């Protein structure tokens, strides 16, 4: 699974960080999403899918 984010849509809600803190973080300055692991390990895939669903701006998508 490869994580893709459209940072132009990101509004810094931080819900992705709550869902998958090993994969997503927020830039300190502008709150925009930072992908910590572009190819997260298998055991984090479900958490990444949850992060994508919870994002209110639909920023996160995947190449599976």
């Amino acid at each position, binding site marked *: 699974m490869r994580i893709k984010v459209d940072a132009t849509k990101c509004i810094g*809600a931080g819900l992705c960080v709550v869902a998958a803190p090993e994969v997503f973080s927020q830039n300190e300055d502008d709150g925009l999403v930072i992908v910590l692991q572009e190819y997260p390990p298998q055991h984090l895939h479900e958490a990444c899918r949850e992060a*994508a669903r919870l994002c209110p701006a639909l920023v996160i998508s995947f190449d599976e």
Partner: protein
Amino acid sequence: MKDAGILIIGAGQAGYQLAVSLRDAGYEKRVLLIGDEPDLPYQRPPLSKAFQSGDCEAGQLTFQTEAFYASRNIELMLGVRILHIDRERRQVTTGDGRCIEYDHLVLATGARNRLLPGWDSTTTGLLTLRTLDDARGLREALNRSKQAVIVGSGFLGLEFAAVAAKRGVGVRVIEASSNLMSRAVSSPVADAFREHHESLGTTFSFDRGVSSIHTEAGRVVGAQTTDGVLHEADLLVVSIGVIPNVELAKEAGLETANGIVVDLNLATSDPSISALGDCAAFPSRFANGHCRIESVQNAVDQARYLAQRLTGHTHGFEAVPWFWSDQGGVKLQIAGVAMNRADELILRGDRAGLKFSAYGFSKGQLVAVESVNRPADHMAARRLLAAHAPVTPAQAADSQFDLRTLLQPVA
């Protein structure tokens, strides 16, 4: 009263988040989430943006799968209306005649769209947008539309206008006041967005209302405005705000005033009943007296707070309200809710290039910041407001001054 647990009426953002946060906080008794829509709880923001443009489907909008709720022992009742609350017996009555008991009841009933007089839901092309069901009908209508009229230039109407204009539909927006988003946003920001929408081909009629809706053979053909002009339309979208769903609370004898009235703990006058989200009027230090905030942030933060309170942690609700709107790719982020109280407005950044922020001060105190394509300003503003930082208009006006230094403790 046996262990009847917590009953949440309303399965939108607030109700969903409360259910999850209760389990996260270790609440072990029954959690029952009841909603009148048939769909699993879902995101509303994309309904006026990516869902309309076809960039996402309904499946991507659900917060969680059905299996998730079962795994967290959250009971879901979908497509069920609650008709009545019996506060003495602590039970509610459903539309299909069942009685359900509660130890604590939470009203997360949200709001419904305001409609134009003479509204006829059977008229083809006459639409409004709140639910997933509405959004499906609207998207279908958009696909067939050549000329759309949108009544109301609030965030929702404008987001939809941008989607429609970008796909070549002729768009006219009818607005009763003299500018866009006038309830919520300062003039410089409204003007910037107006220019952006006009660059997409959208036209505006300000200081006008709709006096009549014209139809032929059950389909919309036009909207007549109060100046007598008839605007042709095959799609008429009404986006003139919402009415909070307070009827259940009112009938149960709870106080309502532009929402179900609650205190800083999100509690009603009945110690067994709380309310939150779009339906709740609560006191906030960010507003003047009680306010009712319609945003994802408010629903989520209030839900997380209430879950803490209901599991024994007590302190008042204090989250900084913030909001965003994405209109055809131009991002507006707002921190604070009281821009309409500002007596002084300072701009920072590149207004012409649509990358600027407007800082609103009331009696010298920062009350709200609107940021257009400037997310760093917005994040700083959330922190400054949370910290009661003593920002002065002079500091806001000085583009060399880093406002975040005001967050550091004084040496």
